[in-house]
């Protein structure tokens, strides 16, 4: 590989505000906690800055020409998350990782590093999408394999069997299944798009999808959903279903597919409500958490209280009571942000996610081939819908599920998977830039 530089000045410019934002966040929370005006330890903040600048440098050195807004957006969202986790660290349990006793912020930074490396490997290394699109069934098999392995040999945390022990580290394979499923669906839809769009059956006024062409994908998707639902991972099931429908919609332009899909999902939830007590419990708490305020409604109610305490301008960083919510650092970190930074701060975080979503969709629109476009759509939908599902769950707009807020919630597998997806987006974007060059007759850079 030739060493070709690709300057990324916009990216660097937008990363620089982090040099103030993250240390300031650490400083303010330290003052709020200790009550004395001193800087406290800024090691983690500096480590985070160094990590993001290093990522930028490697993208430059490797000649990566992908979208320059992705890294700053992710770094800012992740920075807010790291500040929050560092602020929560003394109040939530420490974790044992690699034989070291680390608090949640330290562990999270470790995972940020692992994730960043993975992102760079994909972004800089994956110059050709062949390995992704040509082996789509291999990827699908790998995904199912991971799920089945988890179902058989995994262990339970908080009532859901989602974890596999890899040596000293606990991994959630479900987070990675998302990625391979997106790759598979993108490949399948890209290959069969013409058929799916044109052929259709009509029953009265309703256009029915051409089932034979959809069948292989539906079958595989069905297997995945079955395993996920059996694992009691309802948030993941909702997310996968959302990703699937979004990609199907973008590939075919048929709103009817989405409508039928949504109806099926609602029907499925209704059946599950009747059949599975754990689903019924979730839905009942959602409808009226105050009916059982000390037990099952405790966590969502505490979340709502946190939002209410925050008000318009927030209690101030480090001055709220976020640790009054059980599992605040994973399920309810958005409520903690909203409590301490207020409606304004929570809007800002949502705006960052929305900008990211728009940026991801822009990459999809510019993509020069269908597979790349669908891959970018799938990844963007995955991160965007995940954000919407957990935030809406926190806000009691939909039943609460235990999925993470990307780049913010504490959790290694989620961070690693999210960074891998950024790597894929960067590589799609990079290929588009090169293709545009070629179309304009410029030499291959």
């Amino acid at each position, binding site marked *: 590989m030739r060493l070709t530089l690709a300057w990324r000045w916009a990216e660097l410019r937008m990363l620089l505000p982090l040099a103030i934002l993250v240390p300031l966040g650490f400083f303010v929370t330290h003052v709020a906690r200790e009550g004395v005006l001193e800087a406290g330890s800024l090691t983690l903040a500096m480590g985070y800055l160094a990590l993001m600048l290093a990522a930028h440098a490697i993208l430059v050195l490797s000649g990566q020409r992908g979208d320059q807004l992705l890294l700053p957006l992710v770094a800012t969202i992740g920075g807010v998350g790291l500040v929050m986790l560092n602020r929560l660290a003394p109040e939530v349990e420490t974790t044992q990782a690699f034989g070291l006793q680390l608090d949640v912020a330290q562990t999270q930074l470790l995972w940020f590093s692992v994730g960043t490396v993975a992102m760079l490997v994909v972004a800089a290394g994956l110059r050709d999408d062949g390995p992704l699109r040509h082996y789509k069934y291999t990827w699908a098999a790998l995904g199912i394999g991971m799920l089945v392995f988890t179902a058989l040999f995994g262990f339970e945390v908080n009532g859901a069997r989602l974890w596999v022990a890899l040596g000293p580290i606990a991994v959630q394979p479900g987070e990675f299944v998302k990625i391979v499923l997106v790759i598979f669906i993108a490949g399948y839809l890209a290959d069969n798009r013409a058929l799916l769009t044109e052929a259709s059956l009509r029953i009265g006024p309703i256009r029915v999808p051409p089932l034979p062409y959809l069948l292989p994908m539906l079958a595989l998707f069905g297997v995945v959903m079955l395993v996920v639902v059996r694992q009691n991972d309802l948030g993941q099931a909702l997310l996968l279903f959302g990703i699937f429908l*979004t990609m199907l*919609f*973008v*590939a*075919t*332009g048929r709103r009817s597919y989405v409508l039928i899909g949504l109806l099926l999902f609602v029907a499925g939830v209704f059946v599950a409500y009747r059949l599975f007590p754990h689903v019924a419990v979730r839905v009942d708490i959602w409808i009226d958490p105050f009916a059982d*305020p*000390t037990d099952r409604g405790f966590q969502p*109610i*505490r979340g*709502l*209280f946190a*939002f*209410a*305490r*925050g*008000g*318009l301008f927030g209690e101030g960083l480090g001055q709220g*009571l976020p640790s*009054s919510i059980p599992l605040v650092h994973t399920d309810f970190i958005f409520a903690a942000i*909203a409590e301490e930074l*207020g*409606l304004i701060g*929570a*809007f800002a975080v*949502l705006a960052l*996610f*929305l900008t990211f*979503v*728009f940026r991801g*969709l822009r990459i*999809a*629109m510019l993509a020069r081939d*269908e597979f790349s*476009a*669908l891959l970018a*759509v799938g990844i963007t*939908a995955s991160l*965007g819908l995940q954000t*919407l599902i957990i*935030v*809406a769950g926190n*806000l*009691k*707009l939909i039943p609460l599920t235990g999925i993470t807020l990307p780049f913010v919630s504490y959790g290694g597998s989620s961070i690693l998977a999210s960074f891998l997806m950024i790597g894929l987006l960067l590589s799609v974007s990079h290929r588009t830039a090169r293709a545009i060059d070629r179309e304009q007759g410029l030499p291959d850079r």
Partner: protein
Amino acid sequence: MIATNVRRLALYLLLAFAVVSGGLGWWQVVDAASLNARAENPQVIAARRGALRGTIFDANGQALATSQVIEGISRRTYADAAFSHLLGYASLRFGTTGLERAYDDILTGRADPNPLRDLVNDILDRQPEPKDLTLTVDRRLQDFAAAQLGDTAGAVVAIDPRTGAILAMTSTPTFDATPISGVPDAAGPAMEAITARDGDPLVDRSRQGRYVPGSVMKVFTGAAALDAGIITPQTTYPDQPRQETEGFPVSGFTIREHDLGGIQPDLWPFSPALQVSSNIFFAHVGLELGGEAFLDYARRFGFCEGQQIGSGARGLPVSASYVTAPIDGDCGPFVDDVELASAAFGQAQVNVTPVQMALLAATIANDGVVPELHAVRDVRAHAADPATGPADQILERSSTGGGSRAISVDTARQVRVAMVDAVEAELGQLFAGAGAVRLYGIGGAQTAGKTGTAQRSEGQAPHSWFIGFAPAQDGAEPAIAVAVLVEGGGSGSGRAAPIAGRVMAEWLRLNGGG
């Protein structure tokens, strides 16, 4: 093509983010004030950590619950475990229950009973001043009632029928609320120790426990039928004497009499039927009254919906009592005549609280008017030294003497006469004589009452019930109405009736009778 779809997708996702932002605005701004005021809110709990709480006094000015702030932590001390359910606890760890919860804003001083002063305090941002409560409950009677129940699970509710004031309200087994209401770290183990004990000591059986009432329900059935004009005190059913032994076939099911203890069946009108507690007689009455009228009268007496002790936002909630299987918190329709006939003598789907049954007795005693229940007599300024009794400055008095009419004065009098017979007359003495206050040294006062032996499923001992009031002779104004429930206590005459008799006698004695 794909680009168009992606553009549309962008719009949908934008809409979804807008909806989520709307939800955020709802909880953080629109609905924030009401959430911030809730007692479970950790911010409210944190604010009360070091805040003094008002004292709660009994009717005679004895301090029942007092607060001290030690090392910045507010600690609550309760003088008497017989009050644990009524008062509840005020825990920094577990929140509040009972009157501590109902009157939380008053006790902490966050609110003033006078809305105008409340507004002024709010505008001037004044520091909250705790306020004290004086109860209508007399500690002497409360302790006496609790001692009567002793180790057995049950409840005693005593009401002044004229005012609706609660005179005693106790539930066993009880618990010590003090350790839960002190230092938060110690509250956890204390609570664990309580919940680990048998018999659900945290449950207030008097207002949260729902039990099959058995024959005490016949007072209701009789009152409803007399008031509706379905029967008179002289009405008899020709088939009844025969059916006492052969059974009463209703829609293919045969209703049977309980063990009459050797009494020869006779053609019994209302009073003797109540004395011997004839299921057959009241099954006829219930069927003749009809399901709709039965439910209508049940609602007039307060059945079929949740109730509260005290009015407005500071009422102490009482679980709803049902006469049929409930549907959406209301009594559903009777399924068939068998259910109606069984409900008429207090079986089938009838499930009631001791408070409701005390209210039934009080309504008969109060000439047919359902009195408004209340347990707090007044709200006062905080007394600096609880040992010297409550302060003189009264901020708010509970209203007394209100209430809604359930049955006519004449009907109430007719039922009262029969209830006196059910305790004092020849037949009645065999079944409920143990409830007569005369037995406990109160001369010149007659007692009205009714026992209940509520059958449960096979192998479970029946619940023992008694409801009644005294003095009940013609011309006297009843001073106390009671309901006594002993869980699995067997016959009503065996356990509940003597407890009720003693409690009523004690009250008359304390007030200069006997």
